[in-house]
């Protein structure tokens, strides 16, 4: 096949992969709409992507171990409902938030234990988790949202520091921390190893089960953290919230160049992937594209982006 792109751009794309896609989409959106490339709108985009990015950061680790977590959407609902119930009961936002995040860790441990030591495929374990956590959220709330307009938790979603929204600050901290964890620690190395070759890792003395368990616990806690941010933003906990979050997170991670086969992936890539999806959403909204059409367009763009990435990688090899 003849080269599709001029060689300079092609080289850039193959080196930076999805970053190139992000660049092209940003360029297209700013040409299509004047109000896109303004500071308030970009801050807005960053806030919109923060929740998905926090979840996807945890998902990245899980997918690098060749796993998957389908339960994140339900867990967002469960953790925020539990947190809100505690806040309503005690009046302490801090206690509610800590409990919410611990619930996330516990659910992650539940997922992780079955994956790591019972040897059940992650798809099945977390599919079960998806319905279990949603069910518990509905049971404990009686199916109705809990709304609350006072308390420190609101600032997690609505506050800002030096003009930067708190969700964005949390996202930045999570991304930097997770990047550090993945690239600079023994744990990060083990995560890559287990995903790259589980048996060789085991034969090198790595506790494969423990590594897998840990990534699910961490994923659960980050998902719950995203739940806390969402709860603050909506001033409420809703047992039906978060449906489809798992698909957004998986799409984000894949767009970021992480391999579903495991062993390959970066947190930076995931951040880029989150912005690709966020900018598409934002740009379509600015252009007042019909919501139903948006769904179709998003799916097509995700497919094209991954196809392009594959094509460039294969050519490089």
């Amino acid at each position, binding site marked *: 096949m003849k080269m599709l792109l001029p060689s300079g751009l092609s080289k850039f794309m193959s080196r930076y992969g999805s970053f190139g896609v992000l660049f092209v989409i940003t360029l297209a959106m700013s040409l299509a709409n004047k109000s896109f490339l303004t500071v308030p709108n970009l801050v807005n985009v960053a806030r919109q992507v923060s929740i998905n990015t926090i979840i996807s950061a945890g998902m990245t680790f899980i997918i690098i171990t060749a796993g998957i977590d389908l339960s994140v959407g339900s867990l967002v609902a469960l953790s925020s409902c539990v947190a809100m119930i505690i806040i309503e009961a005690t009046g302490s936002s801090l206690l509610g938030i800590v409990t919410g995040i611990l619930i996330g860790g516990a659910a992650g441990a539940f997922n992780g234990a079955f994956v790591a030591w019972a040897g059940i495929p992650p798809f099945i374990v977390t599919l079960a988790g998806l319905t279990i956590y949603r069910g518990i959220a509905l049971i404990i709330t009686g199916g109705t949202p809990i709304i609350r307009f006072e308390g420190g938790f609101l600032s997690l979603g609505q506050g800002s520091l030096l003009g930067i929204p708190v969700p964005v600050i949390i996202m930045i901290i999570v991304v930097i921390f997770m990047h550090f964890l993945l690239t600079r620690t023994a744990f990060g190395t083990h995560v890559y190893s287990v995903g790259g070759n589980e048996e060789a890792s085991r*034969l090198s003395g790595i506790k494969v089960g423990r590594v897998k368990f840990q990534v699910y616990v961490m994923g659960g806690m980050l998902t719950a953290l995203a739940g806390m941010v969402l709860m603050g933003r909506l001033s409420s906990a809703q047992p039906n919230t978060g449906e489809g979050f798992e698909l957004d997170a998986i799409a984000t991670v894949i767009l970021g160049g992480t391999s579903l086969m495991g062993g390959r992936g970066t947190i930076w890539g995931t951040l880029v992937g989150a912005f690709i999806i966020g900018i598409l959403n934002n740009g379509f909204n600015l252009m007042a594209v019909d919501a139903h059409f948006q769904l179709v367009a998003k799916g097509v763009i995700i497919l094209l982006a991954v196809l392009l990435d594959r094509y460039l990688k294969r050519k490089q090899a």
Partner: protein
Amino acid sequence: MPAQDSSTHGPSASEPPISGLSVLGISKGFPGVQALDDVSFSIHRGEVHVILGENGAGKSTLLKILSGALQPDSGQILLDGKEIHLKTPGAASQAGIAAIYQELSLVPWLSVAHNLFLGRECLIGRFFMSSKRLSEKADEVFTTLGLSLDPKALAGDLGMAEQQLVEISRAFSRSARFILMDEPTASLTETEINLLFGKIETLKKAGVGILYISHRLEEIFRIADRITVMRDGKSVYSGVAGALSLPELIARMVGRPIGNHYPKETITPGELLLEAKDSVSGEKGLAFSLRQGEVVGLAGLVGAGRTEWARKIFGADPDPHMRIKVSGTEVSVASPRQGRDLGMGMVPENRKEHGLIAGRSVLHNITITIMDWLSRLGIVDQKRQSAVSAEYIGKLSIKCPSDSVDISTLSGGNQQKAVLAKWLAREGKIIILDEPTRGIDVGAKLEMYQQMNALCREGKGIILISSDLPELLSMSDRLYVMHEGKFVATLDKREASQEKVLEYASGLGYKNTNRNGSVGL
């Protein structure tokens, strides 16, 4: 270009290849190795042609070419004197050639009858498959072959031999005129082998030509009409069965001159590092021992249980009943991590699946065993990590553009060195090398041998598993021979010869002593 000179290869090659399946001057190379080098021979209808050879002699490549799974670089395949091209397994099947591999290919949760007609259901009915009709059809086939198999049984519930018979029946019912069998008896019991051999006789009488690959020397005389010996990708002997005795055949199989390809240094052994029994014989069995500075070889045929034993020692497949002593202390090894912490390291037979973490850097692969040593509070000291990686890249002269390249881009020999390096980085004292030179070129082999010498000088002990007999004999200080999971003999370097090892390994030496020489050489 097909090489036409095949007159040097004994009686079969001088016969005009008119009826039957013949190959003429077939060559096939893979990166770093010439798997087949100008091989010619033919299989006649109604005869069993046995191909003998050590591992790596090219037998399996030959079989794959005849079954259409691989394409030769040069040479011709003739069917009844006419050239045929086998581009795909389907083409081979069309030509009446069926291959039965060591790993059977039945669908375990389908019935025997379904498996028999898999892909040919149209023979039974256009849309609806009547299971009654399916069974009847299957019964017809089994009756012709004189088999008593239940067509309704699930394939997965059958024993290995019965599964093999289903495969043979399938080949037969497709009116295969030539059936190629790769190590068909590898996992069969004595009775099952007898059953299989009986059916091979039936097939012969029905005019089917059979190519039979094996290195079970004890059994070939029972079925062979003709024998071809392969060595290093060449056919070195071809003749009527019985023309040569077993020792003469063995001599041709291994007859490679052992020169200074093997720069073995001998070091006075130091302290005892490891003692262990095999997991079959129990207390009475022969005890394995390894001292500092020693290379102890494990000889045996494929399937003799050498790798399995080594994996138990290392903790890869923990066996609570195995008695293991490390440096004189009784230990239990329940995981590779425990093996590692006891000072063991293993360079596995299957480098790609068990050794390398493909997609990760050379640095990552070398330091993966010592992440706990390299990190404080979980954070990796990257300077030290680079230093360690650089040290071993230098020490083992691993050739790579930089330590950050993907390990899978290196050559086989360099990959192997990186896998070894991770255990040296962990300061392992007991190094298990399972087929360390398989699939790597001569130069890299030599480097591996020199590395083994260096390790011995440092006081490490090496367990060497190799199916390359000259290598095993030359590089080991002592040898244990395994047969069916048991240590059947221990041989000193001076008393070990290829013939002797093969005798014990094929169970002959063992049977000699046990059954008063009924199957002697």
